[in-house]
């Protein structure tokens, strides 16, 4: 096969660029396969190639499309946002995932149960790891309200999700007997304890004695399907998305939460 020959169905055709033009309301080209996918774009290894406007191509995280940003301007290539490369904010009904004052409020703790005093307060230097399993999967981050209560003096709490303690504060107080809250947006990570790996966790560090409450209000996820409270509303039962496995966001080593 070479330039000028007809395109042969079911064959490998080798040529320079082929253009098909039409001028009607129907698609110029329809690809139809009732047994499988209709199109495959073979990844290119030629990175010197400057694609023309409208070029659709795969990359490591999904699909790219090339466009012009103005007449006479060079082309630009953008990544199409998908479950493989983006995160969206999804609010949930507020859910209490930590309350050091009650047994029920400590149920999600997978580390730090020994850092709570007899009055239900975090001790100074407490480190809590909270398992978010059942609420979300593969969360990149979370929205929450963190509250300090029964404070014994000045102090602060830090909420974070990956790596070591970041050396920052999320909520500060300055006296005993205070009750204070703050909104927080934090990464989520994974954590290993006693040989078990927990894929969706968040941590709280507390510098001085205080009761600590964490109410989750939302998550950053690739798809609302990953949030238990919104899954049913975000896909019909016949949608293949609903049955798809979570291949988009496997946990990487750098997402590991580390005890201070």
């Amino acid at each position, binding site marked *: 096969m*070479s330039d000028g020959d*007809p*395109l*042969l*169905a*079911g064959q490998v*055709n080798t*040529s*320079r660029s*082929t*253009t*098909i033009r*039409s*001028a*009607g*309301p*129907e*698609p110029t*080209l329809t690809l*139809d*396969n*009732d047994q*499988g996918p*209709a*199109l*495959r774009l*073979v*990844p290119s290894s*030629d990175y010197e190639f400057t694609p023309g406007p409208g*070029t*659709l191509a*795969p*990359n490591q*995280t999904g*699909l790219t499309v090339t466009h012009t940003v103005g007449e006479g301007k060079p082309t630009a290539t953008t990544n199409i*946002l*998908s*479950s*493989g*490369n983006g995160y969206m*904010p999804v*609010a949930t*009904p507020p859910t*209490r995932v930590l309350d050091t004052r009650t047994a029920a409020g400590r149920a999600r703790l997978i580390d730090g149960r020994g850092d709570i005093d007899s009055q239900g307060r975090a001790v100074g230097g407490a480190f809590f790891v909270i398992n978010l399993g059942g609420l979300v999967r593969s969360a990149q981050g979370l*929205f929450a309200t963190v*509250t300090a209560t029964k404070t014994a003096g000045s102090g602060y709490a830090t909420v974070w999700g990956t790596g070591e303690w970041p050396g920052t504060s999320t909520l500060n107080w300055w006296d005993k007997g205070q*009750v204070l809250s*703050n909104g*927080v947006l934090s990464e989520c990570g994974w954590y290993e304890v006693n040989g078990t790996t927990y894929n969706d966790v968040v941590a709280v560090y507390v510098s001085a004695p205080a009761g600590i*409450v964490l109410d989750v*209000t*939302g998550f950053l996820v690739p798809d*609302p399907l990953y949030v238990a409270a919104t899954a049913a509303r*975000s896909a*019909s039962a*016949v949608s*293949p998305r609903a049955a*798809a496995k979570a*291949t*988009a966001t496997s946990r990487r080593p750098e997402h590991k939460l580390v005890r201070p």
Partner: protein
Amino acid sequence: MSNPKGADRRAFLKRGGAVAAGAAVTGAVVASPAAADPGDAVILGAGTSAGDATTSLRPSEPGQQMLALENTEGPALRLAPTPGSAFPAVYSSEPGTVLVDQVGDMWNRSADGQQWGWVWSTAWAQTSVSIDPVRALDTRTAEGRQAIVSDRSALDSAGRLRGGQSIVVSLDAYVTAGQSVKANLTAVDTTGGGYLTVWGSGPRPTASSLNWWAAGQVLSAFVFVPLGASGAFRSVVAIHANTATHVLLDVTSFVVAHPSQVKVGDQPPAPPGLALRAAAGAPEIHSNQEDSE
């Protein structure tokens, strides 16, 4: 174009319903019935079947774009939906595979073959749109109370939200069928230690959005809350106080399927036929629920 073999065995279908292989690469072929054996020429303006074979376009020189489709009056390319029966077998398709499923979601396997992704759709995905802050609620003034769409008996004579009471606030003036809201919640003129809970659908959760510990305080916190629907109002939140306080809600952002849903600021227009997610149910106001900060 000449047809080297067997043109008489193919039926010619409607103009424009053409067929062929996919761009810089493959694509299982075909439109409708007209059967042809692999190796037959693809006819412009007709349907051609390649059976179960893949039709591939490959460059004769590196760096060439393989296929350009141009239509000055309509769409250039259509991928007929892949039937549900093809799942999950399609997961093993080669890297670079692109398909549209039967509910309209576009899937693709990344170039390295490590993951499948589905392109975000306004039918289920959502995006965050920031706005200049707007004061949606201020119980201290009559104007600030206009967005309250529930029973005003939850307010005392000074306009404060009573302890143990809840109100429903409509944000429909700022957004059309929004998914959630980001805002700054403030308690003013507190009458004792207490808390506020903001929620958007279903019964009041055991959670707090803002806490304080004495009378006469002014405190704020950022909140992120799902929006619910109540009667004719499609974007509402409920606010509960366990002790009497004035309440302010300053909205800074909405989460929506498409920015055109936000009525504040310079947002892009809605595309024709925009499909949106359904709103959540109405918040259930139960003022006799047990209080817990």
